[in-house]
């Protein structure tokens, strides 16, 4: 497998996690591509317009990328904090619609502003790595870090509170859970992950334009979670990796690949309504692993 595809898959997994975080709290937010676009635009602007960041070496310094990530996180975090207060009052499909609107507004603004390059976007974003493999290693480390954070979150008090809100928001509030703040936390974390991912994607893609954060991306990233499952962080990671790879791996079958891709997204929820990766799956696996070996498996004696 070539490293470029691997890098795209890893970025897909990160975006899947960004959609997953509010969804684990029962909030269907489709704002991920919006925050992703903000991260990408921040990286594109800073790295092409600020000579101070470029350093003296032949490649763009990693420290500058980290600085861009910090700034993108700050910007998306503050924006999510303000927006979340307002939009998280909406429930279910209404929240989804409001967040789609947010993504569209950001896209149209980026498209029409002078300094973001209009419809053409920004070109020649400097490269911190010589090869796609370098990007993949960096993104893998980032993904591992975020997976670890998600794992800790799920196994501790705020994670339990999020699951409780997903199951029954009113009952959760009756247990003393501040539901508004918990939902806001999930929304902000989602925005941070998307923003940081945008920075890496901008450098990897070498150019950035308004098309990268559109409604299509909202649906694609949602499919990662629907397919993979929204109960544990493994679900969106699995969904993101597989569904990003699938259209590329299916290239040999030509135009049929879009049909196969569509069928997979359709059949997934049909056979795995909770997504492929569920807590039940782990329980089943554990049972199979712990089952005492049967006499036949020990090598039959006559």
């Amino acid at each position: 497998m070539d490293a470029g595809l691997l890098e795209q898959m890893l970025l897909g997994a990160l975006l899947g996690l960004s959609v997953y975080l509010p969804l684990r709290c029962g909030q269907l937010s489709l704002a991920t591509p919006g925050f992703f676009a903000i991260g990408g635009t921040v990286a594109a602007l800073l790295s092409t317009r600020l000579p101070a960041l470029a350093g003296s070496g032949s490649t763009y310094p990693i420290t500058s990328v980290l600085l861009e990530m910090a700034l993108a996180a700050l910007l998306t975090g503050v924006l999510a904090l303000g927006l979340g207060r307002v939009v998280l009052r909406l429930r279910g499909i209404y929240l989804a619609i409001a967040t789609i609107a947010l993504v569209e507004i950001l896209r149209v603004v980026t498209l029409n502003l002078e300094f973001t390059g209009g419809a053409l976007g920004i070109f020649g974003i400097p490269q911190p790595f010589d090869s796609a493999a370098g990007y993949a290693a960096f993104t893998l480390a980032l993904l591992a870090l975020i997976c670890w954070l998600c794992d800790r979150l799920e196994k501790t008090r705020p994670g339990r509170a999020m699951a409780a809100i997903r199951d029954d928001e009113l009952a959760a509030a009756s247990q003393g859970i501040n539901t508004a703040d918990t939902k806001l936390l999930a929304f902000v974390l989602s925005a941070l992950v998307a923003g940081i991912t945008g920075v890496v994607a901008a450098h990897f893609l070498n150019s950035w334009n308004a098309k990268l954060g559109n409604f299509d991306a909202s649906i694609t990233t949602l499919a990662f979670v629907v397919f993979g499952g929204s109960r544990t962080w493994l679900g969106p990671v699995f969904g993101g990796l597989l569904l990003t790879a699938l259209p590329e791996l299916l290239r040999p079958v030509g135009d049929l690949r879009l049909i196969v891709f569509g069928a997979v997204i359709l059949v997934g929820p049909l056979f795995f309504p909770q997504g492929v990766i569920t807590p039940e799956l782990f329980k089943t696996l554990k049972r199979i692993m712990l089952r005492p070996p049967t006499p036949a498996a020990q090598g039959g004696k006559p």
Partner: protein
Amino acid sequence: MSLLQVEDVGVRFGGLQALQGVDLEVQQGEIFGLLGPNGAGKTTLFNVISGLTAASCGRVRWRGASLAGLSSHRIARLGIARTFQNLRLFNSLSCLDNVLVGMHQHGRQPPLAALLQTQAFRRRETQLHQQAQELLALFQLEAAAHQNAASLSYGDRRRLEMARALASRPQLLLLDEPAAGMNPAEKDELRELIRRIRDQFKLTVLIIEHHVPLMLGLCDRLAVLNFGQCIALGSPDQVRRDPAVIEAYLGGGA
């Protein structure tokens, strides 16, 4: 001072007057019953006390301070826990996790300690798990600790809701029809259980129930609601003999 004061509380849903001029006081440590026919406004009164429904007029006082305008999670943190008539468990979570969510306000730990899983963090988590297991054991649910709440039988689900409510270490426990769907033997057990947890946890209990014999045998005092108004208030004996109560339950001509 009484623990809970309901003062002239009225609730109006559009053209429907669900509660009107309800006055009652609940004393520390008592088991106070709310009786009344369907649609009398009992659950609405619970919703007002726990902050789910705003009173159109009047106020609820907790230890003398008004609860008006407080959201339900703030009220829960003051020490008022409740169960729901139509069971609102966290169905995708295990019984243990349901109780752990109930402990939400007592389980706060520094985020950094939680991330790094420091020794102090793990010790505290173990302690919380033990407390949750003890609560489950009290309601004979210890064997089901790792089962999903959705997989439990109806009676077990009712008991799990009580365990979850107790997990927040409340001073006042609101029980909304805890005996619904239970057979007579289970109802007797429930009566003993409610008494026991009241003594063990130094609780005050406010309970809604339709089963009149259970209520007369369990409660220290009772209030009877009908069409949103409090028509009788007093000891079980007083309430049983009250002509207004007899009329509400048996009809005017009886």
